[in-house]
């Protein structure tokens, strides 16, 4: 095992040296190598980290002499689920549904509560089928009817009414902590409103138009609210405009969403495990079905439209695409460790300890070699096998979320395609035997790195991208071939030694 890991590490080093020299110009001026450019290295680390997590997962299943083909689809499903769980909607406050719009009487009949409305309030009607949206002034309010002073041009039977709140003051000032030239735009409303940073406010004017901005800061006193907006909505906006506050509504908080995705993926892994151990199906068939099912589910859940995490590009997505900055060079280049890499390190350490230091790891290795002997030694082989599938799918979920946070937009028909094969190939390159009972976590990580460097090499050396799969396939083939030759040579040498002894 150690020999195998050293072998693949040697291959990685050789590849890196090769690409460095090939991309440097002249070749001895290593500093000029495009391969060694900080953003390239960052990119490599990040991709290695995400694929590596998938590889570690599938290694557990491969050690039981099983296989998991559903990883790519599960990566997609977990990304889609994360996007759906974190979906954000902005709901106008003080809103009520309209059941009847009467143009003759100039009234709106509504279904909701009207306690907050009083004469002279401004309201905004939207969402009509025939009637136009517009601002109106309340003349009087009865039980379920609002009469307005303006003329309503058309009748309608649907829509909604939101309260438009007058702005008492707007202010453009230079922010204390900001060093750019842009003004900070703030507005004050003479009312205490339940608004926070991240919520939005739509500014309207009967004639001039409509503008929606995100709130960056909200501070309330007993009878007023001051809102600072992310952008200046423009000079047109004056205190004559009205404000329609919109509450940000997120389906789940980020930690809950992430845990939910991990839980669902673990559950799917458990189902794989149950089908393999209890129903006696072959892992290949079970996970091949998974591959198709999860892909289909992902597409159905999103109507085949891309799901986005754009709302989070400055916050949560940093986990997938951000770096921990380590140094800034004189030329302004920065180098940092991508956050996913820390996930890989943590996953790798836990996985290695689990595999080599705990009884379950030992059971995995034993049953991968000889399931009967493990069973006859009192090991619950079914449970241990299921555990491997759960680990694999959960890590696929983790990897999938990192990919999604990096990509930010997830296309359900292509996101994660072939990822299972990358993961399996990395595990095999890293020393896992598909016969089971053999595997090293460090090896899997190095195997993943080899695949990514290869990928990078194709890009940097301007080899046609269409050859990518062919090249990666050949390298895997040669790798396992060399390994097999070495294995036979050592076996033969050992046999001879024994005969002499």
């Amino acid at each position: 095992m150690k020999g195998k890991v050293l072998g693949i590490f040697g291959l990685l080093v050789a590849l890196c040296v090769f690409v460095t020299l090939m991309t440097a110009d002249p070749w001895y001026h290593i500093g000029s190598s495009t391969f060694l450019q900080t953003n390239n290295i960052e990119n490599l680390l990040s991709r290695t980290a995400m694929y590596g997590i998938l590889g570690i997962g599938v290694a557990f299943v491969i050690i039981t002499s099983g296989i998991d083909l559903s990883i790519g689809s599960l990566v997609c499903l977990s990304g889609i689920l994360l996007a759906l769980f974190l979906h954000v909607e902005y709901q106008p406050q003080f809103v009520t549904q309209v059941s009847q719009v009467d143009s003759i009487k100039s009234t709106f009949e509504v279904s909701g509560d009207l306690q907050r409305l009083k004469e002279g309030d401004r309201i905004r009607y939207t969402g009509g089928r025939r009637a136009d949206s517009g601002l109106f002034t309340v003349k009087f309010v009865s039980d379920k009817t609002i009469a307005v002073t303006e003329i309503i041009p058309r009748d309608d039977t649907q829509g909604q009414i939101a309260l438009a709140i007058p702005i008492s003051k707007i202010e453009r000032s230079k922010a204390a902590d900001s060093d750019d030239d842009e003004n900070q735009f703030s507005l004050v409303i003479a009312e205490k409103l339940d608004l926070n940073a991240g919520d939005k406010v739509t500014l309207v004017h009967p004639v001039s138009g409509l503008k929606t901005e995100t709130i960056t800061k909200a501070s309330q006193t007993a009878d007023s609210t001051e809102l600072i907006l992310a952008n200046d909505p423009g000079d047109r906006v004056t205190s004559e405009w009205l404000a329609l506050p919109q509450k940000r509504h997120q389906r789940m908080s980020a930690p809950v969403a992430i845990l939910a995705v991990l839980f669902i993926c673990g559950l799917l892994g458990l189902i794989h495990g149950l089908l393999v151990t209890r129903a006696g199906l072959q892992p290949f068939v079970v996970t091949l079905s998974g591959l198709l099912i999860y892909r289909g589910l992902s597409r159905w859940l999103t109507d085949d439209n891309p799901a986005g995490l754009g709302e989070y590009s400055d916050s949560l997505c940093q986990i997938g695409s951000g770096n921990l900055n380590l140094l800034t060079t004189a030329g302004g280049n920065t180098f940092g460790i991508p956050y996913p890499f820390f996930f890989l390190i943590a996953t790798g350490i836990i996985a290695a300890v689990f595999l080599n230091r705990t009884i379950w790891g030992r059971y995995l290795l034993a049953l991968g070699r000889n399931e009967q002997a493990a069973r006859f030694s009192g090991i619950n082989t079914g449970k241990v096998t299921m555990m491997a599938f759960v680990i694999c799918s959960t890590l696929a979920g983790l990897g999938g979320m990192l990919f999604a946070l990096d990509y930010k937009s997830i296309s359900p028909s292509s996101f994660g395609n072939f990822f299972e094969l990358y993961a399996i190939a990395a595990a095999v390159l890293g020393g896992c035997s598909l016969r089971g009972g053999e595997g090293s976590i460090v090896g899997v990580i190095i195997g993943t790195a080899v695949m990514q460097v290869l990928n990078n090499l194709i890009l940097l050396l301007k080899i046609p991208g269409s050859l990518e799969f062919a090249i990666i396939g050949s390298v895997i083939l040669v790798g396992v071939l060399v390994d097999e030759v070495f294995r036979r040579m050592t076996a033969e040498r050992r046999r001879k030694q024994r005969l002499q002894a």
Partner: protein
Amino acid sequence: MSDSTNDRPRLQVSSICKSFPGVRALRNVDLQVGPAEVLSVVGENGAGKSTLMKILAGVQAQDSGSINVDGKPQSFRNVRDAMASGIALIHQELNLADNLSIGANIFLGREPLRRGMIDEAAVHKKSAEALEKVGLDVSPKTLVRELTIGQQQLVEIAKAVSFDAQVLIMDEPTSSLSAGESEKLFDVIRNLKSRGVSILYISHRLAEVQDLSDRVTVLRDGENAGELLTGEINHDSLVQLMVGRDISRFYSRKPHDKGSLALQVHDLVTSTWPAEKLNFHICAGEIVGIAGLVGAGRTEMLRTLFGVDRPLAGRISVGEKTISLQSPQDAIEAGVALVPEDRKHEGLVLEMSIRQNIGLAGHRRNAGLGGFLNFQQETTDSSEYSRKLKVKAPHDQHLVSTLSGGNQQKVVLAKWLSMNPKVLLLDEPTRGIDVGAKQEIYQLMDELAGAGMAVLFVSSELEEVIGMSDRAIVMHEGRITGELSREKLTEEAIMQLATTHHHSINKADVSTLSGKANS
């Protein structure tokens, strides 16, 4: 050897040596067989018979020594070479593709072609001829899986006949045949002999050997132990050559005090024999043997007692406590351990080290908080028990696959002894083990019983049952047909119970078992 009526032997083997890691399987073995001669090769398990036959058939290569066929030296690189020289091996385990027809099997790898396609007509015709020669009246188009074991064996022989094999090696051909099928096979052998074919016949069943052979070569511990001619072949002379030592001292038994009840089985029903209820008990300090013919349900009973197979009904108590057996874990927790029959598949993880194998059962018990492996305990257990059981290996990090059968069995035993079981179940504990290790295991069984363990062992070797048991339980077709105390233990008494449905005991069957007893 001088009695051969022909000028030169058809097959002559001299000074064959062969070593496997850790074992010397053959040392300077000589053997010859003439045309139209049946030569039996007998010896205990591990005496080297099967290895010798594999070398002759080109399955394995010898380390040194020569093979002459019809006076010409031959070296076989593979089975094809041996076949080309006219030597065919009928394996102990049949090597037929049971999803194909008889004809396809007979011509597998040498299909007659016609315009690039398999010439089915020729296959059919030639197969039918070969089948006729071995007296098998079945269409060559029949699928092999539809045949009985005996018929499949005849197909193997027909295959050899079809390419005109002059030397036929049969490795325990009757081990899975009924009495009737065996008789038929003997007729085929005599028939082939009359047509000039030489036959190398390997069997444990001394009665068969006596009936069939022109000559017997006896192997012991990988060496020639002697030769017997037709007139000299009888049970006693064979056994003496095979064992070569005084049997009474071989089985070491000291009288032990019987302790309290260790295992009680009440109305146990196993899934293989759902109609039979098993009742017996065993006390601490007792060694109980379970005898019976192959397929009598002994292994299944042990598997059920260890929780590998679920019992359909019944009550099992270990000590005072009734236990519920759902899995081997339950059995182990109750203090029951099983050394299984199939050491390589069920007893050991061959590609793991001695230490890891010994530790495998104890990890759960020894694990620290959070399931971390207790490496220290594993090391202590491993060194303690490999020393106690005298496991012969340079160190305990050695892979188990490199050990000899006897040492492998000791590793399995060490694994269980480290768990301190109250009841030790052993299934054919000495199968495929060399004589020295056998004796060590007998001694160990005695010591364990002396230390208060209840030892229950299944054995097909009658002599082992008689030599080691305080008491023997005899099974037949899933039922316990009787119990014999040490004083009443004789081969005849056991056989009477083991074949209880017959009113008269078949002579061949008795010899079968007594033959096994010595092998």
